[in-house]
C-alpha cells in the first residue's frame, strides 16, 4: 500500500494531511450559498446540537453580509469556526439537508460556516464584548470547547472569569485531539485569540488544578467553579506486553502528532485497536505518516463499529485494512512491539465470545490503542459531594449543568461521557446561564 511517503518536512506533512474542508473563496461561497433552499423550520438547524440558524447565516453570506453571518454563528456557538471544520457534519447539519432526499449533494454547511467565521477572525472585527462587571467571579477548569465557551458566555453576563489549563494552549481536543486534516493548529488558536480579545477572560496555562489544596483556593476565591475537564488518558487494556516500546494510546499519539507533525515517527506496520472514530483517525494518520501497512483491528463485525461510516471510508481511502472479529490477547515482542496475539471472536446474542484455539499473531512494529479514554475520577473525587454516575460521568442538572456540589457546574466530555466539540460548546453556553441563574438568586 503506502499511499503516502513518510513526510520529512512541514511542507510534505501539509501535503499528506491536506485539509478535508479547505477554505472557500468568495465565489465558491456565493455559488454554494445560492444553492440553499432556505427551508422553513430547517432540518439542518434541528440537527445542530448548538442550534445555529443555518439558513439565516447562509442567506447572509449570499447577500454579502459575512459579518452578520459570523454573528449568527457565534451567537449560537463560540466554536463556530472549529465546528465548521471538525463537526461530523455528514451526520449532523449536512446529513439533515433536504437535498439528500432528492439525491442532490447537500449544502456544504460546515465549509460555509468556516468561510464566514474565518472572515471575521481575519478582520478582527469585534462582534461581542463583556457586559459591565457584576462583581462576581467564576473559575473555569479546562480551556477546551466547554471551558472557553463557558468563559465567553459568563463574560457576556458580566462575570470575571479565570480559566485554568494544564496544557500550554487553549481549545482542548481541537488542537490536541482532532485529526490534523480537519483543522490546523493555527486556525484553532486564531479563533481562541479572537474570542479572548473580545470577551477578555483571563487564561492561566500550564496551571493544572490537581490537588485538594488548589481546589480549596478556587472555592474560596470564586463564586462558582465550572468543570470543563474533558476525559483523561487512553484506557489501559490490561494486556500482557502493553508496556512495550511503540505501544501507545491513540489520544497520546494524536496529541503528539498535532504538536510535532512530521517529527512524529510511525511504525512500518501499525495495528490500531478499536472501532470508534478515534481509531479511524489514528489509522488514517498512521497511513499519512507513511506506514506501509495499517490494520484496524476490532473485536466485533464491521457493521458494529462505533465510528461514523464516513470516518471508516476516510480510513479505507488511505489504504487502511480492517481486521474484524478479533480480540487482542497479548502484545508480543522483546522490549519493542513485534506483533499482537489475537483470538478470533464471534458475536452471539450481542455478546462477544472468543473462539477457543483460534489464536494467531499478527506481526507489526507499532500498536495504537484507541479503546476509549478514562474518566478523571481520581481528580473528581477531590471535590466534596460531587456525584458521578456508574460510568464515571459527572451528574449534573440537564438544564443548568449544576452538580451535586452546588458551587460546581459541568459541561462537555466529563459530563456527557465523550461527544463532539459542538456538544461541549452548546452545553457550556447553557451551563453558563445556569451559573448566572444560581448566582443571581
Amino acid at each position, binding site marked *: 500500500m503506502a499511499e503516502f511517503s513518510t513526510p520529512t518536512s512541514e511542507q510534505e506533512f501539509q501535503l499528506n494531511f491536506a485539509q478535508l474542508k479547505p477554505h472557500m473563496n468568495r465565489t465558491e461561497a*456565493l*455559488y454554494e*450559498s*445560492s444553492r440553499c*433552499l*432556505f*427551508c*422553513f*423550520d430547517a*432540518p439542518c*438547524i434541528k440537527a*445542530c446540537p*448548538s*442550534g*445555529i*440558524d443555518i439558513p439565516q447565516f447562509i442567506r447572509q453570506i*449570499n447577500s454579502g453580509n459575512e459579518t452578520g453571518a459570523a454573528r*449568527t*454563528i457565534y*451567537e*449560537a*456557538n463560540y466554536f463556530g469556526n472549529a465546528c465548521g471544520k471538525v463537526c461530523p457534519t455528514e451526520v449532523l447539519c449536512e446529513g439533515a439537508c*433536504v*437535498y439528500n*432526499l*432528492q439525491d442532490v449533494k447537500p449544502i456544504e454547511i460546515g465549509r460555509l460556516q468556516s468561510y464566514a467565521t474565518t472572515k471575521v477572525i481575519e478582520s478582527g472585527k469585534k462582534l461581542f464584548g463583556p*457586559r459591565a462587571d457584576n462583581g462576581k467571579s467564576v473559575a473555569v477548569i479546562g480551556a477546551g470547547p466547554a471551558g472557553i465557551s463557558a468563559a465567553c458566555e459568563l463574560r*457576556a*453576563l458580566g462575570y470575571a472569569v479565570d480559566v485554568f489549563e494544564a496544557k500550554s494552549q487553549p481549545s482542548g481536543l481541537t488542537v490536541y485531539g482532532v485529526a490534523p486534516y480537519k483543522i490546523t493548529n493555527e486556525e484553532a488558536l486564531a479563533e481562541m485569540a479572537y474570542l479572548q480579545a473580545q470577551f477578555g477572560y483571563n487564561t492561566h496555562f500550564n496551571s493544572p488544578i490537581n490537588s485538594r489544596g488548589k481546589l480549596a483556593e478556587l472555592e474560596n476565591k470564586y463564586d462558582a467553579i465550572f468543570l470543563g475537564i474533558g476525559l483523561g488518558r487512553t484506557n489501559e487494556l490490561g494486556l500482557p506486553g502493553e508496556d512495550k516500546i511503540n505501544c501507545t494510546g491513540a489520544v497520546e499519539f494524536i496529541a503528539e502528532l498535532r504538536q510535532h507533525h512530521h517529527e512524529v515517527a510511525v511504525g512500518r506496520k501499525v495495528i490500531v485497536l478499536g472501532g470508534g472514530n478515534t481509531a479511524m483517525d489514528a489509522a488514517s494518520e498512521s497511513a499519512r505518516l507513511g506506514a506501509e501497512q495499517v490494520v484496524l483491528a476490532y473485536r466485533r463485525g464491521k457493521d458494529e463499529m462505533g465510528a461514523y461510516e464516513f470516518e471508516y471510508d476516510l480510513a479505507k481511502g488511505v489504504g487502511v485494512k480492517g481486521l474484524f472479529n478479533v480480540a487482542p490477547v497479548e502484545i508480543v515482542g522483546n522490549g519493542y512491539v513485534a506483533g499482537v496475539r489475537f483470538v478470533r471472536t464471534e458475536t452471539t446474542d450481542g455478546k462477544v465470545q472468543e473462539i477457543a484455539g483460534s489464536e494467531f499473531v499478527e506481526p507489526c512494529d507499532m500498536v495504537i490503542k484507541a479503546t476509549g479514554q478514562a474518566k478523571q475520577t481520581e481528580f473528581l473525587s477531590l471535590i466534596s459531594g460531587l456525584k458521578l454516575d456508574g460510568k464515571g460521568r459527572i451528574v449534573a442538572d*440537564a*438544564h443548568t449543568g449544576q452538580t451535586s456540589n452546588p458551587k460546581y457546574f459541568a459541561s462537555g466530555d466529563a459530563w456527557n461521557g465523550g461527544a463532539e466539540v459542538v456538544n461541549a460548546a*452548546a452545553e457550556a*453556553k*447553557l451551563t453558563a*446561564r445556569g451559573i*448566572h441563574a444560581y448566582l443571581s438568586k
Partner: protein
Amino acid sequence: MPDLSINFAGIKSPNPFWLASAPPTNSGYQVMKAFDAGWGGAVWKTLGVPVVNVSSRYGGVNYRDKRLVGFNNIELISDRPLADNLREIEEVKKRFPNHAVIASLMVQSRQEWHDIVRQSQDAGADGFELNFGCPHGMCERGMGSAVGQEPKILQMIVEWVMEVAQKPVIVKLTPNISDITEPAMAARRGGADAISLINTIQSIVGVDIDQFAPYPIVDGKGTNGGYCGPAVKPIALNMVKNCAQHPDVRLPISGIGGIENWRDAVEHILLGASSVQVCTAAMHFGFGIIREMTSGLEQYMVDKGFNTIYDFVGKALPNVLPWEQLNMKYKVTANIHEEKCIGCQLCYTACEDGAHQAIRLNAGTRVPEIIEENCVGCNLCSLVCPVEDCITMDRTDDGTQHLTWRERTEAGDVPVEFNDEKAGGRHHWVPEPTAALGKERHKTLPGKARVLNGETEVPAGV
C-alpha cells in the same frame, strides 16, 4: 427537415434569428463572424451622426450566483463614421448575399432621413429599422424613445422615410409608454412595413451602496440606462402579444426582449413574432449560442410537425384573452405527491404567509398537507417547490361548466357594494388575526435561544 427560413415583410433570412442593433453589430467584422457562426440576420448598430460615448457603459443585475439576469447600458448609437459603416455593410452583403442586413437609423431632419436611407440603400442594406426606442441619451436630444413616445411625430418621420425607401421599413418601438399599440398603429399609418419590439426599458440597474451612485458609474455619477436581458422577456412578450392581437396594427413583428435560447424564441413566435432579435445573450456568451438556438428550434418544429416558422407564428394568440373572458368555473387544487417531497416546507410557509393558509404541518412528518377546502388553486406552492412534479395543480371541477366575469356582469351577478355577498372572499375561511401571534417565534429565535434541553429563554441584553 423543417424550413427555418423567413421572409419578413420582404426581408429574406435563412433563419429567424437576427442580432439586434447593439454593440454586437458595431462592425463588419462582428457581423461577418456572426453570419459565419449561423445567425440569419443582423440589424446594424444604429447609424446617424456619430456620437461620443462615455467610459463605463454597462450595468448588470445578478440574481444570487447568476450573472446578468438583467443588463443595462448607457451607450449611444454608432460612434463610427457613416462611410465606414456603409462600406462594411456593402462588404458583408457581398460575402453573405442571402443573409439579412438591416440598417438601423436615427437622425433628426427630413433631409437627414432621406440622405441616410438613400445611402444605406446604395450600400446594399436589405431593409431599415427606425430606432424610435433608445431611452437614454439620444432621447434627451429629441430622438429615440422621444419619438417613440409621440405617435404623431413617429408617423411623420415614417412618412419621410417612406418617401425614399425602396426596401422594407421596420419601426422599432419603445416600451417606455403606457400603450404600445398606439405607436404601432402610428407606424402603420405612416406606411411602415413592420414593427420590432421591445427596445430597452428605462432603468437604474442598481446603486453602489458605498459610493451612493447608480450603476454604471461614470466618475462618481450615473444616469438612467436601457434595461434588457432575460428579466425583460415577460414585458416584451406581453407587448408583442398586444401588437399582434390589435386589429389595427396588422404588421409583421420582430420580437425582441430576453431571448437567450430556442424556447424564448418559440415563445415570442407563438405570440406573433415572425423574426426574433437577440442582443444581451450574444454580449454575454458570444455568437456561438446560435447553434443551440437553431438546433432547438429545429427539434421543436420536428416534434410538433411544423414545416415552416409560419406554421406557428401567433399560435398562442387565440388563447390569450382578457381576464373577463376566463372561465371562473375552472378549479385546480394543489396536490403534494408525498413520495417526491423532500420536506423543505417552502410550500407551507409560502401558503401560510403569502397566500391562503391552505397547507398544514402535521406532527411526525415534514411532508405538509393541503387543506383542500382552503386551497384557491393559486399555484404558489407548486411554484416555490424545488422538486419537479412534486406539487401538481390538479383539476377538480368536472369540466362541464363555463362562466366568465363578462357573462356574470351581463347577467347582473357581480358584487357591486362594499360588503357584497357575491364577492369571492366573503365566504372564504381566514384564521383569527391573533392566532398569528407567536406562532412561529420559537423557530426564528437566534440559535442559542432555541430549544435546548427544554429551554427557550433568551438571556437579557446579550
